[in-house]
């Protein structure tokens, strides 16, 4: 694989991260490529979710956190004081571990973000809802019940709605924090198919506990352990020919 500078969307340089005095990430340097699916794996508490939440500045919401090093998004440091986290989060969408639709109608869940950022026209919004739901492969299931509460959907449908909601903001990147860990196998398969489809247009970074999932959906995989990036390579290499003993132990199930 040839990597040139212009298809790199995220560039992390010696990133350290602290919750108060506890260091959660140590000296992380890695690049994320455009229109690829990158998986972050590792045992609980290894810092993979923390890293994901650094990429759209969600960790800002926690008191007493501190970032060192540089996180460049399209070449500019998102932690520079003149970069507005609100602006950054519009371009970098996020899907959470537990489906978290708003207690609003399906329609209003999708239009919530766009409406607050300038799209007011009803026809535009309707088109956006249809596009987003189609992209999230949910349209056929909900097109007749758009005014029903999102809370009446099943867990898997709710998670696809959350993906549609994120896509409605037309982001460049989609961050997914264990998006299927609360779902049944059939819903999980649907989300994985969806990821396969979405990677044509979006850069996807996915945190997962499920190693088969990482192997199935991603092209690059990073293995984290105790806040450090242990190994980062093509997914096929990580799973067939890991270079570091800890990676091998983890993927063969010897710990974690």
């Amino acid at each position: 694989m040839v990597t040139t500078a212009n298809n790199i969307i995220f560039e992390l340089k010696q990133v350290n991260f602290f919750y108060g005095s506890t260091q959660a990430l140590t000296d992380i340097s890695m690049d994320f490529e455009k229109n690829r699916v990158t998986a972050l794996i590792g045992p609980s508490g290894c810092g993979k979710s923390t890293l994901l939440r650094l990429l759209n500045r969600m960790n800002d919401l926690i008191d007493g956190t501190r970032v060192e090093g540089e996180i460049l998004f399209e070449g500019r440091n998102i932690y520079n004081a003149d970069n507005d986290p609100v602006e950054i989060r519009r371009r970098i969408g996020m899907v959470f571990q537990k489906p978290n639709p708003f207690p609003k109608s399906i329609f209003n869940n999708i239009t919530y973000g766009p409406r607050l950022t300038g799209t007011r026209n009803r026809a535009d919004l309707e088109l956006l809802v249809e596009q987003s739901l189609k992209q999230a492969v949910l349209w056929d299931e909900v097109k007749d019940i758009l005014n029903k509460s999102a809370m009446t959907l099943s867990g898997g449908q709710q998670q696809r709605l959350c993906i549609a909601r994120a896509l409605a903001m037309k982001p460049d990147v989609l961050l997914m924090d264990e998006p299927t860990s609360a779902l049944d196998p059939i819903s999980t398969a649907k989300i994985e198919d969806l990821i396969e489809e979405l990677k044509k247009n979006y850069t996807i970074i996915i945190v997962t506990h499920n190693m088969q999932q990482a192997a199935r959906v991603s092209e690059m995989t990073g293995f984290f352990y105790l806040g450090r990036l242990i190994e980062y390579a093509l997914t096929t290499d990580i799973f067939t020919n890991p270079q570091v003993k800890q990676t091998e132990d983890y993927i063969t199930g010897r710990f974690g």
Partner: protein
Amino acid sequence: MNLTSDNSITWRYAKQQVFFNIVRLAALLISAALGGLLLFIIASGIQAISWDFITLPPRDSMTKGGIMPAIVGTFYLTLGAIAIALPLGVASAIYLSEYARQGTIVRIIRIGVNCLAGVPSVVFGLFGLGFFVVYLKFGSSILSGALTLGILILPTIIGASEEALKAVPQTFREASLALGVSKWGTILRIVLPNALPGILTGSILGIGRAAGETAPIMFTAAAFFTAKLPESIFDEVMALPYHVYVLATAGTHIEETRSIQYGTVLVLVALVLGIDLIAIAIRSAMRKRKKW
């Protein structure tokens, strides 16, 4: 199964029954106290109630006639107190739970709010007299009384609002922020609407308290007697609790006006319950829509 274990199960079951009955008794006692109080008020006050009683002003040195000016006065004072305390209380709660960095300063503010809740109501009355009536020259008026009552119920509203805001799942905030909506937008569109039923609960408690207090309005708003209805917020008004106080202690016709006293209390209770019922209806309608 042997005899001992049988015995011990019977014994444990008996113990359980005893404790169930104790807590049952406690609950019954509370209900009985409330029911008894209401029955007593209704029984003693009902014969005073008539259309004239609630639509006419008092006459003949307040031994006859109605209590209309007091009903209107209490209504205005309560409404004014809520209008002042609700925005201020909700805003404070938003600051404390959403914006302020949790630390020493917030802890001091919270202690302050709790202390305010424990201050005797007559102290609020004196403060209102000194500050609103005299210093700000509002005089004895609806404005002074509503401000004093507003401060009195502020801690209740702040406390309930803060609890309600905290009860909104953090995941809603994260979902909204992750979409690139600002913090203020998130509070306005997601957090507040979902906290509203809880905030209303606080307001209900506040309304009940504001309508029923005598001491805070004694020096700040309440008139001994005035037949005319208020024309501006700078007018003095009669108020139901103060009217009862006056008739029951300060008049020269205490015995003759017993039934008017009970009638006034009955109207006061009905007024507070009425306002409560409206708020409860709004709250349950809201809750029906919010499910998570």
